[in-house]
Every structure is written in C-alpha cells, then in structure tokens.
C-alpha cells in the first residue's frame, strides 16, 4: 500500500472545519425550556476552542489520553451529545457540501435545526463506533440491516430494487475482504467475530457514500491481531471512495501507520497538529515529546518505561493558562518569567513550518 502524500494545501477543499469549538457539560432544562446550569453548579467546559480542518479524502487522526475531550469533540460534530446536559457553548462546525461547477456549500452543523441535521447524520457524515457488537441489532440479519441503512441513508436509496441494492452491498463486502458474502449476509451478529462485525460496520458506514467518516476508537474493542486488518480495510475503502476519515485513537502506533495528519489533544485543547511524519519525527510540544518517548522500542535495553509525571487534570481543575505547565519539564526548569507566562496565558498556536506543523507552547 503506497502512502498518500501529505496534504496540507489551503487550495484543497476542506470537508470539515471546526472552529473554536467549546463544549460544556452540566446543563439542565429550566423553565420555558431555557438552558440553565444543573443544580446551580456552573457547567464544566471540557473542550476549549478546538479548531482543526479535515480535507477531502484525508485520513485525520485525533489523539490524546482518556478524558482529554477527543471523543466529545468528534461527537459534537454531529451533535451526538447527551441532551440537555452537554451543549456547544462556542464556535462552529462547518461542513462543506461538494457541489458541481461551483464552490462548495458551507453549512454550520452546530446551528442546524435537528430535523435538518438528521439528514446529514449517516448519509453525509457517518460514524463507526467502538463496540461493533452493540452497534448491530442482534436479532436482525446482516442483510436486512445493511439494506435498511442503504434504503434510509444512501442518496436515492429508496429507488433501488432490493436485488440491485444487494448487488452494490455485496461488491462493498468483497472490497472489505469478505469472500463468502452470501454467508455473511445471511448471518446474525453473534455468528461473526468482532473484526468481521467492524468490517461490516465500515461497509455500512460507506453505503451512503458520505463525505466524512468519524471512527471513534474503532479497534479498541478488537483483538490486536485483527486491528491492522480492520484499519487497512477502512483506509483502503475510504481512499477508493474519496471519503475523509476522522480517526479517534490513543494509539500512536496506529496514528503513525495510517494517518495523513494528526492533532494531539491535552486537557480539552489541541496542543499540536501537523503532518504525521513531522509530528512523529520532530514533535514540538513537550507533551507530544513525552508521549512519544513513552512508547517502548523493541530493541531498547531500558528496564523502566519512560512516563510523564503527574496525571491529566479533571475538567473542574482546568486553568486558563497552559494546562500542561504543572507536568512540563521545560516550564519547571525555565525562567521565572516563562513559568509565569505558562501559567497565566493560553499559549497561541505558532505556525513554524510551511507544512502546517504547529504547536501551542511558549518555549519552542
């Protein structure tokens, strides 16, 4: 499989542009349907002005520790947030609908009325979840579930005769590495393995020819041996149909192997973003450096794994300055002025290279 060239060209049309997106938890419905803080406690802002852009056909990875807000960010794109507790309090999610012979149409998903938004869910932006076993209904055959999604989500899906639709589905299943498609179609979810189910889910998500697929840790629940296969299928099928992928993961190995670009999140903020090669080979932010140093190498003689001291702060302890400052060696060993700066201000994104590799740190 040949690696696609790194795309960071402002001329390539974006599929999705998330701008200054902040999500807060802890709202409740007050009188007259107005949103008020639940129990009078101010809502916790778990993501802080997250911005990133995904380009057409790109494989974009969002990495970070558990609880850093990567899933919340991804789910807020389609507003799949628990209601009324979680709300988008700031920013916009711009989705670009491709149009022939003209500039792409810009739609702000964060402000779209719900019935309108539901037309985008599944058909323009599809999701793949962590647990394929739970994502499929155990009492309905794979054939019926795929057909249902095809009818409901695919453009013009209702106009297809079942036989025609099945033909298309079988083709996609073959692309996903299934040889005995008839048997797979006739089986029920419990008769297939986790890896097979996840590949069925990938086929299902691509049936509607979406512009973007959000894959929320698609291999976390799977056996290590099939993870590579599932991701390869996802990458290959997305490339074939020109679909962009937003992959959420905490596995740096997966990122380096499959992604074109990566954004690293820490405590609700994106702290570094750039083409995968550059971020892996030359991380700028101290957190990314620590994260990459923590990956054990097969030929190293180290007895203990390297680790970053301390732990991720809870959202209620989020500070306005750099949230990594307390764990940051550079900050700790830096001058008094630097320490004050780190703790006092939000480090701005510093564009350092033409490739778009940027990090949010005062001491680069």
């Amino acid at each position, binding site marked *: 499989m040949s690696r696609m060239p790194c795309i960071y060209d402002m001329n390539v049309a974006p599929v999705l542009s998330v701008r200054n997106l902040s999500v807060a938890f802890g709202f409740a419905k007050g009188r007259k349907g107005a949103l008020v803080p639940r129990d009078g406690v101010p809502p916790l802002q778990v993501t802080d002005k997250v911005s990133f852009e995904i380009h057409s056909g790109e494989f974009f990875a969002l990495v970070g520790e558990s609880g850093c807000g990567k899933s919340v960010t991804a789910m807020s794109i*389609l507003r*799949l947030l628990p209601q009324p507790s979680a709300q988008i309090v700031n920013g916009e999610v711009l989705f670009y609908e491709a149009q022939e012979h003209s500039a792409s149409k810009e739609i702000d998903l964060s402000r779209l009325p719900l*019935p309108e938004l*539901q*037309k985008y*869910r*599944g058909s323009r932006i599809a*999701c793949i*979840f962590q*647990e394929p076993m*739970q*994502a*499929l*209904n*155990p*009492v*309905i*055959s794979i054939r019926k579930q795929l057909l249902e999604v095809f009818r*409901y*989500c695919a453009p013009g899906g209702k106009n297809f005769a*079942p036989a025609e639709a099945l033909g298309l589905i079988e083709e996609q299943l073959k692309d996903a590495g299934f040889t005995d498609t008839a048997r797979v179609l006739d*089986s*029920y979810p*419990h*008769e297939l393995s986790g890896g097979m189910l996840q590949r069925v889910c990938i086929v299902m998500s691509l049936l509607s020819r979406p512009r973007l697929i959000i894959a929320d840790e698609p291999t976390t629940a799977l056996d290590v041996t099939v993870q590579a296969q599932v991701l390869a299928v996802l990458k290959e099928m997305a490339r074939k149909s020109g679909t962009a992928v937003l992959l959420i993961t905490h596995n740096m190995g997966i990122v380096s192997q499959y992604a074109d670009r990566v954004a690293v999140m820490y405590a609700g903020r994106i702290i570094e973003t750039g083409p995968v090669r550059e971020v892996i080979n030359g991380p700028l932010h101290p957190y990314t450096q620590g994260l990459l140093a923590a990956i054990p190498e097969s030929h190293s003689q180290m007895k203990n794994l390297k680790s970053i001291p301390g732990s991720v702060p809870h959202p209620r302890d989020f500070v306005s300055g750099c949230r990594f400052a307390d764990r940051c060696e550079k900050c700790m060993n830096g001058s008094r002025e630097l320490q004050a700066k780190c703790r006092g201000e939000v480090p701005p994104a510093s564009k350092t290279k033409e490739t778009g590799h940027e990090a949010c740190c005062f001491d680069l």
Partner: protein
Amino acid sequence: MKFRLTTETKNRLARFRKNKRAFWSFVVLLVVYLLSLTSPWTVNDKPLYMSFNGKSYFPAFARYSEKDFGGSYDTEPDYKLLIAEAEECKADGFTGSNCDDIWAIMPPIPHDPLHHYLDGDEAPPCAPDGTHWLGTDAEGRDVLSRLIHGFRICISFSLVLTLIGTIIGIIIGGIQGYLGKFWDTGMQRIIEIWSSLPMLYVVILIGSIYGHSFWLLIIVMAAFNWISLSYYMRAEFLKLRNMTYVQSAKVLGMGHRHIFFKEILPNAMTPVVTLFPFTLVGGIGSLTSLDYLGFGLQPPTPSWGELMSQGMKHLYAPWISVSTVAALFVTLLLTTFVGEGVRDAMDPKSGDRYE
C-alpha cells in the same frame, strides 16, 4: 421477503423438541384443545346427520324447527325423543306412513352439557353407567359433556386473557422503559396502586352490576393480568434503549414506532414467551376458582369450578369431584411442563451450575 426463522429461533425450537416431556405435553394439550373446539358439534345431543322420511338434515350444524318434523311448535325439536318415538312406533308394529322413517348418526358423546337427563329411575346425581360415562351431576347433566365443554371454554378464556394481558403488558412496560425518567417513575407508582386493588372484589363488584359475561370477565381480569409482565418489559426496554444500535436509529431520526417495535421489541421477547405458559396456568386457575366461588361465568355455562363446587356439596357422588379434579390436575401439569420446556429452551444455561 419470505418468512424465515432465525437460527437462534431454530435452536430454541430444537431445544424445546429435545425436551420430551415438554414437547409431548404440548402435543397432547394442542390435540385435546383442537378436538375440544369441535365439541359444540361432537359433544351434543343433536345428530350429525339425520334422514327423516327420505330427506337429509344436519341438526348439529343448522337449526330446524319442530314443524319440519311434523310438530306444531317453532322450537327446536328434541331429536333423541324424536328418534325414540319412531323406534317405539316401529316396535309397536305400525308400518308405512304411520311411522316416521328416521335414520341418524349421533355424535360420539351424545349428551348436551345443558340438558337435564332426568328420565332415569333414580334422582340425580347418577353414578357412571353405559350412557353417562362419568355419571351426571346434581341437576342430571352429563359430567363428561360438561367437562369437555368446560375445558374448551376455560382454555379459550385463558388464552384470550393471556393474549390481551401480554399485549397490554408489552405496551405499558415498553412505554415506561422507552420513555424513562418521569414517565417511568410516575407510571410505576400508578401501577403499584393499581396492583394493590384486590381483583376478587373488583370482579364481584363489576359482576353484580353488569352480570357475568365471558367478555366482561376477560376485560376485568385482563386489567390485572398484565402487571407482572410489564415489570419485565420495563427492565428490558430500559436496558436495550441504551444500546448503540437503538441510539443510532434515534439520532438518524427514525420514528418512535420503528424503534419500539423493530429495534427493541424483538430483543425483548424472551420474558414474553417464557411467561406466556405460566400466565396461561394462572388464567385457568383463576377462572376455575372464580367459578367455584360462584363469581365466574354465568350459570349454567359448563365450567370446572362449578362442577367442583357441586362435587364439594355432593361428596357421596365422588365421580363429579374426582373426574373434575383429575382433569384440572392433568391440564395444569401439562401446561406447566410446557412452560418449563419453553423456559429452558429460551435459556440454554438454565441447567448449568458452577461448582
């Protein structure tokens, strides 16, 4: 699309069939019930076929008046008497047009459950003999005929009752679990109040005002019958509505009805199927006990409870109580066997133990 059984359903059916006791109980119950459904024609005192002076009649299936057979009233004739008179006439030596020429096929059990057979020498209840195989009750009615008709009515009653109760239970429990939150808690409190109403008093009260009809009794009893199932359905729906496939159907904007019936309900059928036979047993038991107390179906409807209370009053005529209790015992036992078989078939691990 053609109807196909899922593999799991096939497995369950196979497991049920492997359980010999449950399977044969089911076959016996089914055959006996289907046979009893023919009892209005086969357990009756009207001939299945009667040739009267060369013309054909089917009295068991159609109504004829006495005038058709030379009588003077518009009422239905007593066919047994008609046949007996014709035979007597022939025995007396009359021939030709003086005697009616009758030839009839009587049903296998030629006794009407409501007819009082008082033409014997002794006062009823009469002990079993060649004519009345299980004897007659205190009013001279044939016990076997009443048992068979009672079985038909009792099982039909219980089936309809359980079916209605199951549907109500699914819908109410499902709505509770599906909506959750305030609806769940609110309806649960109302159900608790409702379930603390004593059913027997309500049946007596309603019965004394509106009379004891089959459908009224079903409605009143169904109003209490669904409660236990609704608890199970509520729990299942509460669990299943958080599954990813249900939530994705929701966020795609699928209708509530689709999610309720197509996504969740098929996954929640286990308690429905498992409870069905046991609710059926409960229905048979409650109808019999209501009839025994005299608050059930309107007399003289043939019923087991009424027969049992007669047996209690006439202990010197043991054929009444013994046959009724035996029939009830066997029916309940077989239904329970079926229920156990269904339960085990739905849960393959129920026989396993960790030691």
